[in-house]
């Protein structure tokens, strides 16, 4: 049996020390996921705390159908997406309009930045990443960064492997289109 399974079972019995271990094990991966989706460290921290607190409150709902690790990720991702959605709804009026795809021609600032090619490349990737939807960012993070299997990501996102394959191909193509102009930097 998985360690996380046992920890979650202990949480169900009201063992607070098990929650402390879960927090230690999952705080960083959940924070990384939240940061990738939200792109803001403060918001990501808030969402991470909310997600970790939810594990304690909802541990009783875990029936053991999925692995505890998957269930925790599922809960965390849902919390992060909800958090981001409600934050955007609250601040919609004051938020800047979504950014357009950056002009591929290098401007004076970019020419300077080209001296530090990596910085520019990083900025371009971040901008391209920001063009994706929240769920697509989460998918790209789980697949490329966390290197999780599509079956596991499907369980986390509540989707099927087939649907995710199509979605992943779209994400890959979109990023490719957005970054086409800075191939030499990459």
């Amino acid at each position, binding site marked *: 049996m998985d360690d996380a399974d046992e920890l979650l079972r202990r949480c169900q019995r009201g063992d607070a020390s098990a929650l402390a271990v879960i*927090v230690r094990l999952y705080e960083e991966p959940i924070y990384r996921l939240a*940061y990738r989706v939200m792109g803001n460290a403060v918001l990501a921290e808030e969402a991470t705390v909310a997600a970790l607190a939810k594990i304690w409150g909802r541990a009783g709902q875990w029936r053991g159908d999925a692995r505890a690790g998957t269930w925790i990720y599922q809960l965390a991702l849902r919390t992060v997406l909800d958090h981001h959605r409600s934050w955007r709804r609250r601040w919609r009026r004051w938020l800047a309009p979504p950014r357009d795809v950056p002009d591929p021609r290098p401007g004076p600032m970019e020419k300077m930045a080209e001296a530090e090619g990596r910085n520019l490349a990083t900025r371009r990737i971040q901008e391209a*990443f920001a063009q994706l939807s929240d769920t697509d960012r989460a998918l790209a993070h789980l697949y490329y960064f966390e290197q999780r299997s599509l079956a596991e990501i499907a369980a986390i996102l509540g989707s099927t492997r087939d649907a995710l394959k199509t979605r992943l191909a779209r994400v890959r193509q979109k990023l490719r289109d957005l970054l086409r102009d800075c191939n030499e930097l990459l």
Partner: protein
Amino acid sequence: MNSFEPTSPCERASRQLPDLRDGLLDAVQAEALRAHLEACPYCREDQAWDDRLRDLLHELPLPAPRGRFGEQVRRRLRRRWWWRAGGSVAAAALLAVGLVSWQNWPRRPQEPVADHPGNPPVARRGDELPDSAVLFAAPPVDSLDLLARQQAGYVAVLEQLGKE
């Protein structure tokens, strides 16, 4: 069987790339895919982009959290517990106040209800002659007033019969 049927070898290869990564292809399928990737420049480029994307995501800066989250989680759970406890106490207090107010609320005296065979007889003014249902109903033991009025009713009826 997948619901999606690829229409070309390249499309099939593109959809099989995640399967190859997850180790879901058997030896023959994996070999066929590798052979296709070797021969097809488009798919080779596609796979190279896939690998590049993985490297790029690893290179993107990912700020470390400012501290551990344990204490923040504990504080949040404690706050939630206080909110819940406070909410329960407030709800109970509100219910108690409501019940007490309801019990002590001044009520208007009730109007007499029309006679009905199912209803007990209601009090009437003395000058009214009770109808037959009241006259011949079994008298309630606790109502001396009604007994007196029943008796007066009998007398009135007998007097009327005597006149006739």
